[in-house]
């Protein structure tokens, strides 16, 4: 409906040029009726008229077809030999808008925790949703030129700054008043994870951005309900006015255009969309090919930038060490991304957004086509799809009657390298002329004779930028100052070899048979010449570098060094004759067997029989232990591990930012570690929610999560949270003392209890009452804290000194819940009995101390004393380096305080499993438990023990022999890629061999593993 009104409006626009603006001079009444005839008209990617007519009036297409009667009085443009394409549509830009200005950061000054509130806006400066960017739109001729030059006639525009960025407008690139350019004043809301120019502290992590988005999307609903309840019943506290939340009301139906930085962020944005039923249009990164199936499963439309990485510099020996396999692969694969996305059946539009240079757009696009992208798909991604994304598909994107007359004229296939774009018409007006339509095409070969000698005149190159020569026998004379001027061509030449010394100048024009004109010889005498056209100009040799040839690299999962080409399969496996450290009552079994089936331990004993098809491992002389569990890890996390801004950030979730492509996961597996609790950092008293993962290398973020575990959350105490070592500026956040740490926690728990009660009371109201009462606003932070005080979410608390540990236990007891684990717990030995009585576990550093004042009393005998007093004790890593040899960290307790070997091993197996509340599944070797185990070549507590194989769920994720093969393969792959880069560097002279070969660029089934074929399942 709106669209129709707009169309009508548009039609009326051109009746009188300015509708509300007073005309201050003579009114313009130039007729607008035009007919473009004899053209090849590409109406849409599906429909082309070979010889047709396009009739345009008042900025609209009146008619299009091959059988059109040209209306009387139309201005006629004969476009014989030319093609008309729809004007392109740019789905995301900042055209005609002021760029975001970053207020001068308060360098060295105190942090900014609160926003400056203007106009009843959002509490966070990264939220600009209250802006509709039409309010600031002003056409910008210079910027428009850049887009027009590429063939764009329409853009969607918004200021691309912040997390909620406000509403886009869809405008044309024509000249004149902004009022006349608008196709859709209120387009999509845009969003991203990037806080942009905001100088406010929160959020400073990816997970913080996600939490802010989540809370905002929740608030939209609450705001609406609160307003209606207040309208019904004003006898209650007035709900605040919040223009950002007001503006976002329609987002659940209209959706968001969400800009992302990489494939993982794209999937994260899609998950948010799914969680809140917000349709997402996702701006991609060029990395989509790495996770095509997952990207496809989002069922979102993509907006694809078309930037390719530059080849790394590897000219000097040693340079190659600075370049990773992942970067080299991306260099090689990036041009294939559009083709692969299209082949996967993913709906997408192209954008010039994020190109380092917009002028690279066509070069990159043609490369994508050379890499296999069908031209129809490319055209759709430049016209119909972006028009649909921008909500103006019934106005632009095709050349159908009734639509806006925005189109471009070329002399051939838009995507061919040789094709010229002549000009672009916006709403019926020639807005940007590249080459005059009237420009005569002089290109060709001509025969002429001068001084009784037969010569060949060759004119070639671009229609408006000719190159040429005069040749005879073996001689060639280069034409200089070659210029075209509509009907005339001018050049000069040194004709010494023809016996005319000096410079001779020519002017010519086309005739029916060829070219004729005059020339002046150096002696000043005018002569006439006449040349007979003999044929077309030879093709310009294609000197452009084409590196799309053959992909030498593989895709792996994840697509970095040591990624898997195939995921490990679940196997029935029998380990024989091992020393089995069960880590439960059975103790250590010599010369024993273990059978695993369906991902579980089926039996442990002696002389077990191997089922059919079982893999049998002779582990004579080897040691078998449960998979090592790390109670405290920060690997596999995207972005900052701290939302280190507010003192309480229980709303943020590590689970939102699990990074399955962290090489430290593989390294941990190589050290026998199968599982870890990924924790928020220790920058605030109440941090974020943790995520337990199994190190299922090659899996997705979701596949890595261990779903059997109850949730847990990070707390922290002491110097970090009171900001003791953060510098002199960081002194304004509450708390600054251990006293304040206690009170802010107390306040949070109290708020959680009261919130829970308010929510319960509201839920118990009758329906009518509920409609009259403003509902308690759902607060993700308090939701988490309610779980904490109800012992549904276990606290893992970073802690050093005894007083603060005692404090937290007593505080928790007051609120009637139990602290799960004190982590680091360096003075735990001073309050071991209190911890045992409270029921808290201890996850200790093995031997760290002296790095700050609060650890000056840390002792390496801490785990021993804690164990002696009955505290469930583990040793933790907090570091990817320790996290891959936790068995050794446990063994330090043998060295420092004579802990028994079995107890020591339990500190990295069953004890952390207990702390994580997953000891029913993992942590020891017993029938029915998960088949997570490690084979070692020596006593696992010895420094000489090296993990040989690491299994999770009956799948072999690490094998020291396979690792050797991977190293060899990677070295060979890298060697070849480096050679390819070097070759590409110096290849301009022999580019012929680099053009797409007979086997085609994308038919490389051998170099393309199963995982990456769009149609296949897998990663």
């Amino acid at each position, binding site marked *: 409906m709106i669209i129709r009104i707009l169309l009508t409006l548009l039609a009326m626009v051109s009746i009188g040029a300015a509708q509300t603006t007073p005309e201050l001079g003579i009114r313009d009444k130039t007729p607008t009726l035009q007919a473009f005839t004899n053209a090849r008209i590409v109406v849409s990617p599906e429909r082309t008229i070979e010889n047709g007519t396009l009739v345009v009036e008042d900025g609209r297409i009146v008619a299009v077809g091959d059988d059109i009667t040209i209306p009387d009085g139309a201005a006629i443009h004969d476009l014989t030999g030319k093609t008309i394409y729809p004007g392109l549509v740019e789905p995301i830009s900042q055209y005609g808008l002021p760029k975001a200005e970053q207020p001068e950061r308060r360098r060295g000054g105190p942090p900014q925790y609160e926003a400056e509130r203007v106009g009843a806006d959002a509490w966070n400066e990264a939220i600009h949703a209250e802006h509709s960017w039409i309010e600031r739109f002003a056409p910008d001729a210079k910027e428009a030129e850049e887009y027009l030059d590429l063939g764009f006639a329409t853009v969607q525009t918004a200021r691309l700054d912040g997390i909620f960025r406000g509403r886009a407008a869809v405008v044309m690139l024509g000249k004149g008043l902004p009022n006349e350019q608008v196709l859709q004043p209120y387009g999509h809301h845009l969003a991203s994870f990037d806080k942009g120019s905001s100088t406010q502290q929160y959020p400073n992590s990816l997970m913080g951005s996600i939490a802010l988005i989540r809370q905002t999307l929740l608030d939209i609903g609450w705001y609406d309900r609160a307003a209606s309840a207040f309208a019904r019943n004003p006898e209650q506290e007035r709900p605040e006015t919040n223009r950002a939340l007001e503006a976002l009301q329609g987002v659940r139906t209209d959706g968001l255009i969400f800009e992302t930085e990489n494939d993982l962020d794209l999937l994260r944005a899609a998950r948010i969309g799914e969680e809140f039923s917000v349709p997402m249009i996702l701006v991609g990164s060029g990395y989509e090919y790495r996770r095509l199936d997952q990207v496809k499963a989002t069922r979102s439309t993509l907006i694809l930038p078309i930037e390719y990485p530059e080849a790394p510099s590897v000219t000097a020996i040693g340079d190659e060490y600075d370049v990773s396999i992942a970067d080299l692969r991306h260099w090689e694969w990036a041009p294939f991304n559009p083709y692969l996305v299209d082949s996967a059946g993913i709906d997408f539009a192209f954008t010039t957004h994020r190109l380092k240079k917009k002028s690279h757009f066509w070069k990159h696009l043609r490369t994508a086509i050379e890499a296999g992208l069908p031209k129809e798909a490319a055209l759709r991604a430049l016209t119909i799809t972006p028009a649909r994304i921008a909500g103006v598909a019934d106005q632009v994107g095709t050349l159908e009657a009734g639509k806006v007359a925005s189109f471009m004229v070329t002399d051939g296939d838009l995507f061919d390298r040789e094709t010229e774009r002549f000009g672009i018409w916006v709403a019926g007006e020639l807005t940007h002329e590249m080459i005059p339509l009237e420009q005569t095409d002089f290109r060709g070969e001509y025969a002429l004779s001068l001084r009784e000698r037969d010569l060949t005149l060759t004119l070639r190159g671009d229609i408006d930028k000719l190159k040429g020569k005069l040749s005879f026998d073996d001689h060639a004379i280069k034409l200089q100052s070659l210029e075209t001027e509509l009907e005339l061509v001018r050049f000069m030449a040194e004709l010494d070899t023809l016996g005319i010394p000096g410079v001779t100048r020519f002017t010519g024009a086309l005739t029916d048979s060829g070219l004729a004109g005059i020339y002046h010889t150096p002696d000043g005498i005018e002569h006439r010449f006449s040349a007979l056209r003999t044929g077309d100009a030879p093709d310009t040799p294609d000197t452009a570098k084409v590196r799309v040839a053959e992909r030498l690299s593989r895709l792996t999962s994840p697509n970095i060094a040591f990624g898997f080409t195939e995921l490990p399969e679940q196997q029935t496996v029998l380990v024989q004759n091992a020393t089995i450290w069960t880590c439960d009552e059975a103790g250590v079994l010599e010369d024993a067997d273990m059978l695993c089936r369906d991902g579980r331990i089926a039996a442990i004993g002696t002389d077990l029989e191997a089922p059919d098809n079982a893999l049998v491992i002779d582990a004579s002389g080897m040691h078998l232990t449960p998979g090592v569990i790390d109670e405290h890890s920060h690997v596999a996390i995207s972005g900052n591990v701290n939302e280190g801004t507010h003192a309480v950030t229980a709303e943020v979730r590590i689970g939102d930012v699990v990074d399955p492509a962290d090489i430290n996961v593989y390294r941990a597996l190589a050290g026998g570690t199968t599982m870890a609790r990924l924790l928020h950092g220790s920058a605030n008293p109440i941090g974020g929610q943790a995520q337990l993962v199994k190190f299922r290398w090659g899996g997705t973020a979701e596949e890595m999560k261990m779903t059997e575990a109850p949730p847990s959350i990070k707390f922290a105490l002491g110097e970090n949270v009171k900001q003791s070592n953060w510098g002199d500026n960081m002194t304004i956040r509450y708390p600054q003392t251990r006293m304040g740490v206690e009170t802010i926690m107390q306040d949070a728990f109290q708020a959680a209890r009261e919130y829970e009660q308010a929510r319960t009371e509201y839920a118990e109201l009758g329906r009518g009452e509920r409609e009259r009462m403003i509902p308690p606003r759902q607060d993700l932070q308090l939701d988490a804290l309610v779980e904490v005080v109800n012992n549904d979410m276990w606290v893992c608390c970073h802690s050093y000194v005894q007083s603060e540990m005692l404090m937290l236990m007593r505080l928790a007891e007051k609120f009637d819940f139990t602290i799960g684990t004190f982590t680091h717990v360096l003075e735990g030995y001073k309050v071991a009995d209190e911890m045992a009585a409270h029921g808290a576990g201890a996850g200790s550093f093995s031997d760290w101390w*002296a790095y700050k*004042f609060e650890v000056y009393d840390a002792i390496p005998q801490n785990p021993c004393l804690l164990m002696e*007093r009955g505290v469930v004790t583990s040793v933790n890593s907090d570091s990817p380096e320790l996290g891959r*040899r936790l068995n050794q960290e446990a063994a330090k307790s043998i060295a420092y305080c004579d802990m028994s070997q079995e107890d020591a091993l339990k500190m990295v197996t069953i004890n952390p499993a207990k702390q994580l509340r997953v000891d029913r599944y993992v942590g020891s070797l017993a029938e029915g438990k998960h088949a997570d185990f490690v084979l070692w070549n020596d006593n696992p507590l010895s*420094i*000489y023990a090296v993990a040989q194989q690491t299994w999770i769920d009956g799948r072999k994720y690490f094998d020291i022999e396979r690792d050797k093969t991977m190293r060899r393969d*990677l070295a060979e792959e*890298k060697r070849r890629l480096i050679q390819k880069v070097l070759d590409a560097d110096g290849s301009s002279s022999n580019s012929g061999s680099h053009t797409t070969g007979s086997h085609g660029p994308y038919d490389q089934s051998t170099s393309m593993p199963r995982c990456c074929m769009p149609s296949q399942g897998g990663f």
Partner: protein
Amino acid sequence: MNRQLQILVLVACLLLAATVSAHDYVPGEPQDHPILLKGGDLYTVANGVLEGTDLLFEDGRITQIGTDLALPEGTEVIDISGKHVYPGLIDLNTQLGLIEIGAVRATNDITERGRTTPEVKAYIAYNPDSELLPSVRSNGITTALVVPGGSLIRGRSSLMNLDGWTWEDAAEKPIAALHISWPRTRVITAWWMDQSAEEQKEQMAKNRRELVDMFDKAHAYSIAKQADPDLPKDIRWEAMAPIFTDDLPVFIEANDYRQIEQAIAFAEKWKLNVVITGAREAWRAADMLTEHDIPVIVSRTQNMPLRSDDDYDIAFKQPALLQQAGVRFAISASSSWGTRNLPWHTGMAVAFGLTPEMALRSITLTPAEIIGVADDLGSLEVGKKATLFVSQGDVLDYLEHGVELMFIGGAAVDLSNKHKELYEKYRQKEYPVEAAE
């Protein structure tokens, strides 16, 4: 002395010491009577393992090694049958005594202001009462090179015994080497880097130029000073002169391949007695290092790979790779309090291919040779200082580590430390104590 007895002695010491404040481990008195370690397995380093062999030391030096030794009168015989005897371990890259608590600035004396500070000497700031020292030596480390920090020409290091009343008392070699941090050569492409590759390369070239300039000046000074000893003294260049005239070792901290490559070329040009420290990618430059016979001090084998594509165990196995290539190397924990992990860094390398003999050599005799004290330290040989210790078993393995006796220059070292004391203290705590609230 068995472990139980040791603990008893320790407790007795604690009780005695209870009235004295803070750190009161009394430095060992000079040896006043001959001591025989009887029946231990001697890890001599110089002459293999001598099982069940006696070792006699007098006046601070080893005088006899063998069986059925003729003992001087008044010899104290300590039966250590079944235990291991090692030369004291040496770490050539530490900040011991220069820093107490990392985050407390007042306790940090590692780095002087300025990029070129060759004039500073580590021993000046060495705190012999640091609580870190007893914790380190109780793991077998007797001797440490204490190294100033800095971003270019850092200053001069001092070789210290980890038991002494004052820095004068503790200094084994007050001026041991000059230390340089090689300018960065690696282009960083991580998300947080805001400089382009070109800008980074420009900065790197500038830093390298600066180093060359400083050497030009120091060298010019050295030549001029030799010609005319009465020239005014520049204490910076004065400090550097011995690298040109007396072969004072120059330790260059260089980690990635290109830093090492450049440092080697630099050392060749200036004919320096050079040692590469840090050396995380020495394995890539192994041939160059052997060709020029440049020793290497490998920092931390228990470390992450330098680059994302490296083998997971590259740091673990680097010593083995260097051994195979014939590079001379020592292993260092490169830390302050973490110096006590030196045995584990070394054992780790054994797990990944280093021979046990070379492993032990890399923390005893090789570092002694590199720093020029091999006549006194680094092996169990007659004539050398009795700087040695007795452990339960294999000192490189968690399962058998357990240092029971230690002597530095014949003086018995108190093996107690703050940690052992706190452990004992809190083992005495009883529960329940009345809750405060």
